[in-house]
């Protein structure tokens, strides 16, 4: 053996695995973990003037956050909007995935391609298309006025919380559809038939067999919609007006015009914690739920 190190390396699977993984792990560390740590530290500093920051440690920014009614209410509103979007998306998307998983026999692939295709078109454009639909002179108002059902445009359609919820439900739908479909498609249909043969009603079969077995997909869908929508910036900025404003819009302000980077960092950290708590709560309750069911 000329090179003992080399031969140990060649025999060690972990060593080979980690050398293959190292570029990805370095990327995650340099571009995500270190910046996030730095963001966390900035949340303990103080902005003293437009360009200067006092780097001594203080928790004052977090106190500021919870003392500002606006910020707390925007956080609550972000969570509420995100929760509603998640719920509506799940309820509306589930039957579609159920249909494709259990009723479609031919060309399932084609259905799936069609289902995921809209997700790949620009997010900004998907949001923008709702501006065309809901605007004061938009598709809905101009059609209704044309038909004679309306004299004045409906103003509540645009620049409201409702507009934000509708738009987000559309924009993130494809995300929910995939995990839901995958989990439903995995269900062995003979289990459902067995349930029926044993005399369970259609509802009981769904409640006791199909729904629990599709739980992983439901959880996946919840997380994958809640996380991006709670921090969404584009939709509230384009369609929210003052009523539909969310926490992200304030965070953007702190890094932009208002120029209070520490308070912005603290707000972002609080958002990150909210996401972490929701993620853990959802995974924990799933674990409990699936234990109880099995």
């Amino acid at each position: 053996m000329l090179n003992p190190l080399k031969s140990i390396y060649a025999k060690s699977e972990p060593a080979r695995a980690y050398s293959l993984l190292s570029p990805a792990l370095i990327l995650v560390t340099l571009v995500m973990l270190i910046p996030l740590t730095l963001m966390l530290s900035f949340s303990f500093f103080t902005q003293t003037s437009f360009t200067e920051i006092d780097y001594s440690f203080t928790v004052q920014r977090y106190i500021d956050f919870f003392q500002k009614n606006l910020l707390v209410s925007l956080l609550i509103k972000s969570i509420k909007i995100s929760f509603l979007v998640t719920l509506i998306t799940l309820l509306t998307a589930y039957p579609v995935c159920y249909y494709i998983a259990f009723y479609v026999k031919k060309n399932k692939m084609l259905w799936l391609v069609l289902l995921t295709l809209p997700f790949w078109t620009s997010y900004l454009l998907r949001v923008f298309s709702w501006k065309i639909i809901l605007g004061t002179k938009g598709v809905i108002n101009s059609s209704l006025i044309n038909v004679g059902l309306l004299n004045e445009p409906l103003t509540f359609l645009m620049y409201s919380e409702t507009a934000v919820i509708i738009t987000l439900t559309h924009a993130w739908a494809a995300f929910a559809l995939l995990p839901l479909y995958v989990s439903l498609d995995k269900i062995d249909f003979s289990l459902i038939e067995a349930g029926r043969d044993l005399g369970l009603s259609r509802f009981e079969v769904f409640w006791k067999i199909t729904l629990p077995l599709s739980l992983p997909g439901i959880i996946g869908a919840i997380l994958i919609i809640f996380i991006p929508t709670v921090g969404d910036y584009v939709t509230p900025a384009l369609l929210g007006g003052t009523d539909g404003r969310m926490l992200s819009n304030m965070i953007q302000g702190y890094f932009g015009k208002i120029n209070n980077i520490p308070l912005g960092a603290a707000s972002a950290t609080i958002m990150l914690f909210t996401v972490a708590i929701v993620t853990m709560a959802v995974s924990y309750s799933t674990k409990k739920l699936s234990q109880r069911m099995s």
Partner: protein
Amino acid sequence: MEQKNNALLIYTLLYFAFLYVPVLFLPLFSFNDGNYMSFPLTGFTTEHYEEMWSKSNLHNALWASIKVGVVASIVSTTIALFAAKAFARYKFRGQNISYGAIMMPFLIPEIILAVSLLIIWLALGFKLGLVPVTLGHILFCTPFAMLILIARIEGFDFSLEEASRDLGENAWGTFFRVSLPLYLPGIIASLLLSFIISFDEFVLAFFLTGSDATLPMYMWAQMRFVQKLPHVLALGAVIIVFTTLIVLLAFWLRNLGQGKKKAEFGINIHE
């Protein structure tokens, strides 16, 4: 398999309409010769497309987006290819943690990634521009690329690689002559989809571009002015057609030679 259910079929078709119709208003109104996007349509015109093409800012933004997209897709696909190989080939301690770490950009709202990159970039005293945007896009595309590539590499017969090594080919030769040709459809699919993600990405670009606008940033700036909307519609319509074609090509490549094994498109985090 269930028997027929027409109510559910109708509901499903309506849902598809909900997914598709809003987006189709963009191309529809892009050919309308009115300044507002309202019904009734006033007449057919292609002048918005001519106007769109006459903007030099748009050319710059398009070029910026192509540069960022090409670099981001090549780098993230390369990084993801190594990582996917590690997960598909080896069992090792710390596997789940490593997987979770690489997937983490999915589990963090994008605005937070953007803001944290902004802070570090400014703290280091660097100038905002396309470089930090590209870095952010590489971070964001890598988990997507890895999922696509894992799906391709899983079920790959690694004894082919071993045979090549036994026959005296070195590691690089084995990679280029045996592995690469077999992974190639997955690699191209990953390149195309990463490019599209980067090309359409807005939030990271919004915080990090400074004055070098990418195409989504250009559109964002134009969206505020009502008189400029028609040519944004034309641009949007072009982007939608272009993206759809690329994504269909990527889907087709991804499933090439996969038979019925992989019926899953796009992403699935809970596997």
